[in-house]
């Protein structure tokens, strides 16, 4: 094999790196939800992908609500007011879905001390139920005779198809790195994701409640003896995961502009991969894993062709876990101090 020719296609290193960072930041935000819940409950919340997916719909719905259905292309500045409303709405919707999951799919099992495997099955079931429920939203509306009134939102007859945001955001070039036009959208995504993660890291490290979360992660029984309400801690953990997923959903819709009822699946798997790669249970691991996965799969796509993107991502996961089974930064929400 002629390596020179292979890497010849890899002439735009910087462009693939920045592109990868943008997706990596979104992966990292979703990964936080997996990693927080794992840190506190040692349980993989497989339905977290659906928490994200509901957020993407919330974004599109807000645009339909506040703008209407005429397809337009706006600059980031023009879309910003609606985008901010959508950001808040997506966070609320995702957080509510996450809290509902905790209440319905997990808490009854945890209270009965069910094996983790049972909770995992419950999670997979909840994931399918949520995803399919979104795909049947026209029927739900139909029960109340609202399917025509709400047709812009529930897409009667096409509820399972791609659902596009009527406003596509036109990226505006800010500067160039190695031939890649870095846009305002890219910068906003990366900066917003990093800010959210920084805020969460500080919350967990510095506040009283954050200390309670770390205490439950490190030794749940001792935490109870200190007066920590572990049910409340679990609830807040799901809430935080939901808020982060809602933020990720907004950033995703800025970049991609459309969603569907199964949009969470691949993103969820990638984010879960990022969490495991960085060391599940470790907040900073989720950030590192997310950014790294985004960059590496983009490089992989550049070298081998874009159809190889996911192959590269998952081969990378296997390789990293072979060398460091507990992930790059190691396990445990508590032990790494965040």
């Amino acid at each position, binding site marked *: 094999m002629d390596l020179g020719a292979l890497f010849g296609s890899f002439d735009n290193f910087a462009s693939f790196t920045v592109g990868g960072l943008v997706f990596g930041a979104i992966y990292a935000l979703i990964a936080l939800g997996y990693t927080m819940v794992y840190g506190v409950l040692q349980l993989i919340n497989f339905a977290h992908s659906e928490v994200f997916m509901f957020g993407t719909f919330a974004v599109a719905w807000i645009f339909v609500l506040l703008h209407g259905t005429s397809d337009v292309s706006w600059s980031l500045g023009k879309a910003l007011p609606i985008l901010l409303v959508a950001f808040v709405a997506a966070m609320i919707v995702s957080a509510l879905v996450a809290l509902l999951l905790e209440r319905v799919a997990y808490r009854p099992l945890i209270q009965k001390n069910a094996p983790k495997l049972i909770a995992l099955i419950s999670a997979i079931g909840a994931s399918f139920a949520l995803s399919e429920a979104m795909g049947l939203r026209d029927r739900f509306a139909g029960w109340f005779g609202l399917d025509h009134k709400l047709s812009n939102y529930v897409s009667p007859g096409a509820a399972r198809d791609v659902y596009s945001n009527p406003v596509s955001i036109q990226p505006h070039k800010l500067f160039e790195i190695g031939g890649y036009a870095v846009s305002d959208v890219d910068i906003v995504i990366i900066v917003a994701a990093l800010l959210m993660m920084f805020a969460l890291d500080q919350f967990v490290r510095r506040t*009283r409640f954050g*200390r*309670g979360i*770390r*205490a439950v992660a*490190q*030794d749940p*029984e*001792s*935490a*109870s*003896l*200190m*007066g*920590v*309400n572990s049910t409340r801690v679990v609830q807040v953990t799901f809430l935080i995961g939901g808020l982060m997923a809602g933020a990720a959903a907004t950033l995703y819709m800025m970049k991609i502009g459309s969603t569907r009822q199964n949009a969470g699946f691949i993103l969820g798997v990638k984010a879960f991969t990022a969490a495991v790669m960085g060391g599940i249970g470790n907040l900073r691991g989720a950030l590192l894993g997310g950014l790294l996965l985004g960059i590496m799969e983009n490089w992989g796509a550049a070298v081998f062709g874009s159809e190889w993107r996911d192959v590269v991502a998952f081969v990378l996961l296997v390789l990293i876990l072979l060398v460091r089974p507990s992930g790059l930064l190691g396990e*445990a929400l*508590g*032990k*790494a*101090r965040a």
Partner: protein
Amino acid sequence: MLLEVEGLCVNYGHIEAIRDISFGVEEGTITTLIGANGAGKTTTLKTISGLRPVRAGRIVFDGTDITHLPPYERVKMGLSQSPEGRGCFPGMTVRENLDMGAFVRKDTRTPAYQQDLDRVFDLFPRLSERVNQMAGTMSGGEQQMLAMGRALMARPKVVLLDEPSMGLAPKLIAQIFAIIDEIRAQGTTVLLVEQNAAQALKRSDSAHILETGRIIRSGPGRDLAGDASVKAAYLGGDV
């Protein structure tokens, strides 16, 4: 009575861990539970703290029935515990562990809180040297001190100490017991579970011997320590 346990029964699945246990803890005293491994001492403490569900009987603390209160409510009422195996938070510093001990307190920015920290550092000078060290990297003896200091940071009315001398060197054990005396002298009631029966009985105002989940004997600590059959069974012959 500050703490009263009446007819307490606790099961693990179908196995009876403790059966019909009754005893009281008078304010300002040291009360000790001794017994062999598996006699139900730790289960009794965990149940008093609310970590195990009660099958029958009741627990009254400070005049309130707490039998079915969640653990955090009991901590708020002034019941704190240093668990068996210490249960320090390994990824937190000594200071953070002590702050965890005061999790239910709202006065963490007041001089009163600082006084309580100073009090713990007086009892355990070793901890003040290590405020910023991760608990997980400390020796067993240091972790024991941290667990006890942490339990005191809640300003409890009664502190439950589960095997504070377990796995420690003899010199450290003597130190731990001296500190238990000091905790009582400062006005905190102590409920102690110990394997080290000789040391524990000597300083207990009242003591109870557990065997396979039941209390088989009760009395002032010194009386039990002087009893021939107790000596033979729990104190390894002579004291």
